[in-house]
């Protein structure tokens, strides 16, 4: 459910102001010069997506510009990230970290394959996802089957799993945090669940 605003670029908004050659915006002043300038920009044909900076807790609004979304057989690429001028906290500004967010997304050091280190090993090996999911699920079940604590030291039912721990990310969304809690604690019975807030 994406509101139309997200896909309507500010450049498009300016352009709609010039329809019919009137070159006068809803605000009542002439935007011809601004339009002419906008046409020259690299980001003129980009799609803008509203997002939130993943770093500190101020949560500045950012606009992520992607190119290529509307062409067939082209993988869209992030070409620019800037502050969202409509956001009441940052009003378009960003700090030195936020202004370089593009390098957090487009970065040759990003992990793009599943890596596996065998017991005693000295190297990473590439593995397929399906293999990794099967192997991890098997390990989880094996540990849980043997180590689920049905009763505590006083003989009361607890059904608690303390042989597996889960720590979650500070850039995981609420929804992912909730899913982690639901799947691991309410589902598998894991008690040691923690996150960055503790430390």
């Amino acid at each position, binding site marked *: 459910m994406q509101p139309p605003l997200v896909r309507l670029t500010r450049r498009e908004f300016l352009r709609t102001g010039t329809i019919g050659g009137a070159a006068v915006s809803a605000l009542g002043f002439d935007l011809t010069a601004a339009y002419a300038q906008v046409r020259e920009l690299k980001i003129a044909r980009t799609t803008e997506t509203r*997002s939130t900076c993943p770093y500190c807790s101020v*949560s500045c609004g950012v606009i992520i510009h992607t190119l290529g979304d509307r062409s067939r057989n082209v993988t869209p690429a992030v070409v620019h990230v800037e502050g969202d001028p409509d956001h009441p906290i940052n009003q378009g500004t960003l700090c030195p970290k936020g202004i370089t967010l593009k390098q957090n997304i487009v970065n040759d050091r990003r992990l793009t394959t599943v890596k596996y280190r065998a017991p005693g090993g000295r190297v990473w090996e590439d593995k397929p996802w399906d293999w990794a999911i099967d192997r991890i*699920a098997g390990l989880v079940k094996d540990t849980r089957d043997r180590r689920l604590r049905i009763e505590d030291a006083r003989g009361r039912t607890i059904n608690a799993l303390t042989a597996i721990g889960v720590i*979650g990310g500070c850039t*995981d969304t609420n929804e*992912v945090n909730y899913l*982690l809690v639901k799947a691991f604690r309410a589902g598998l019975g894991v*008690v040691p669940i923690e996150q960055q807030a503790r430390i």
Partner: protein
Amino acid sequence: MTNGWTDIRNADVVLAMGGNPAENHPVGFRFVMDAKRNRNAILVCVDPRFNRTAAVADRFVQIRAGTDIAFLGGLINYALARARFHEEYVRLFTNAPLLVSERYAFDAARGVFSGWDDAQRAYTDVSSWAYDIGPDGFARTDPTLQHPRTVFQVMKQFYARYTPEEVSRICGCSADDFVKTAEVITSTYTADRAGTIMYALGWTHHSHSVQLIHAAAMLQLLLGNIGRPGGGLNALRGHANIQGGTDCGMAYHNLPGYIPVPKAADQTLDAFVSAATPRALRPNSTNFWSNTDRFVVSQLKAFYGAAATRPNDFGYRLHPRLPQAESGAYENWSWAYIFDAMHDGDLEGFFSFGMNPVSNGPNSRKAIAALAKLRWLVVAENFEQETAAFWRDDILSLVDLRPEDVQTEVFMLPAANFAEKDGSFVNSARWIQWKWKAVDPPGDAKPDQEIVARIFLKVRELYEKEGGTFPDPIRGLHWWYSNPTSPSLEEVSREINGWAVEDVRDASGAVVVRRGQQLSRFLDTRADGSTLSGNWLYIGMYTDQGNMAQRRSTADPSGLGRYPDWTFSWPANRRILYNRCSADGQGRPWDATRVGIAWNGERWVGDTPDYTVDSPPGADLGAFIMLPEGVARLFVPGQFVDGPWSEHYEPVESPVPNPLHPEHSSNPAVRPFSSAFDVLGTAEEYPIVCTTYRLTEHFHYWTKNNPYAVQLQPEFFVEIPEELARQQDIANGDQVRVTSARGSIEGKAMVTRRIKPMQIDGRQVYQIGFPIHWGFLGRGTQRGALANLVTPTVVDPNSFAPEYKGFLVRLEKV
């Protein structure tokens, strides 16, 4: 935050202490500068170091790391002794008039509260940290505040010890500097002035961190600053969504919505609900937690769906309960305890979603040694990092192991980053803000929801196929999503908010929410299974009007920067918590130019009121609706394990014995760990106080892969006071080694005047400090400079946060 970033512009005085917002929250700091420009606000910075916030502050005071309670205690004493507190506010909204139990006592000479057992070196009976309860079951009060056992009088006596001279002796600032600063900070006690406090990890990283924030809350309550525009106690927080993670139950002790995790003693749903529901301590107090049963049952319905029925206690027995040891204590599974148990070999497997405990947890060597004992480790990440790669030769050599010695199977799963998935973050102002997916993740990287779902569903499949131990909760889990292997976060968001499973009726039997409708009010939840809500606290986030976290109106009817239609703020879209306190006993705003809420004769108008909307001001429901006494706690009865008042305790490693009570120098309730890595140093061997911090150009341990960030701040360095550098013949740029009892770290010396030597209780004490952002993996110069190689695994006994600030080291030129 009780208030929010945009509200800080309404402050008259801003105290930045235990945080360095100009450096670490630079964009939020705009609102401080706004207040300075437009209101002539005074910015006061109190810190161990002349930092970037200090550089633009009107007043700066340097204090020794770990002595903030003494400074705040001094401010409390200053306010009380000179009648610079907001008397009507204190009388109306705090527990100042309540009487303290006759059995409560504090031994100021020894530094322990009543209930301390010398033989066991522990608080064994804290029942005296309580109110004096009358025959009606409610706390006794004296509205004149004159009774010697009123919270007010006990407090006055307790803090009288914190004179300016004592503050100077402990903190190392001059008494004169303290008094001038106290005059500024306490100037907000009048009804027409408001002051805010901004703090962050500089306060939470201590072995007395909860009491430190308690002290700040007491000060703000005395000054009448809580609940008011321009006031509040504002935790800046460090990461994009640790607030949301905490709200959603990512902590071993909490379910989503701050409901405690069930304990072994709570064998039935009734037992659990009754243990988790407080009893009102004042006749008319709202005691909002009396609705715990509705929130719990709605959450169980969200977890277990059709498997949660009335006959089976709504699936309560499917959920794990916290184990209790023979000794009576409930097991602690917070971060440091997890790694302690892992080091003891008690864990087999571990998942780390975007976390790097080798770098970000305390005592890195202990963390590495602990990971080496696991059978398997799964790390989902954007970039290769030290935890996933802990088995590398160079990292394992820190604990004298080789890769061949370590049998841990490690999976490093490529994960999508923020731009590659949608969903909501909660900022420190409690704004739940939706973000949209901009682009697909690179290569084979997957969003976390898909990783979690696929692992869970595969485990479920194995249980279906093979059977196994107690499969019931796995089979019963309500996994209703349209795409089960990668749940839509819109759907998850709807579930977190919740909906009516059956028609919801009021007391008269009329339908208030129809079956299938989203909930929009807390009190529409039911304990009979007719509603489902993953997290009651977020109700209102996703209603039948749509996803409120996506709202983008910048309308500001208050003119105070509250933006009520911008996304959604928990709870109930309230922008300022405890806002009942922004108005006097008659419901008139303390300051007509900064209205939080106001009573118009029929209802409260302004911000979403923190009070029943149509209850008149005289209803005496209490402004603090989540507390059973309805008033804020200056004296804290039985909630903290280390005392009902904040007392100055030294850090666990300290250069001096506590000048107030050397016998109990550091927090007596702290429980030390006992592994071979948990060693503490003495002031003789490690004479220098050390603290850690961050730089604006980097974020935590992530941006070391970012070329621009690495260019701006290329390598680890140590800030050293000029006098100390001269003494040790260290020049700018020299290579130095910082060593604690746990380990050492090397880097370039940065000789500075930003940290001055101090006189502490008659001794010369030096402080040094360094930023945390480096390690083994990343671009540029890393050289294994993990800041936490030197920090101790010593944790606060309430919050279990580690003491990263104010530990002891020695310094050498390499």
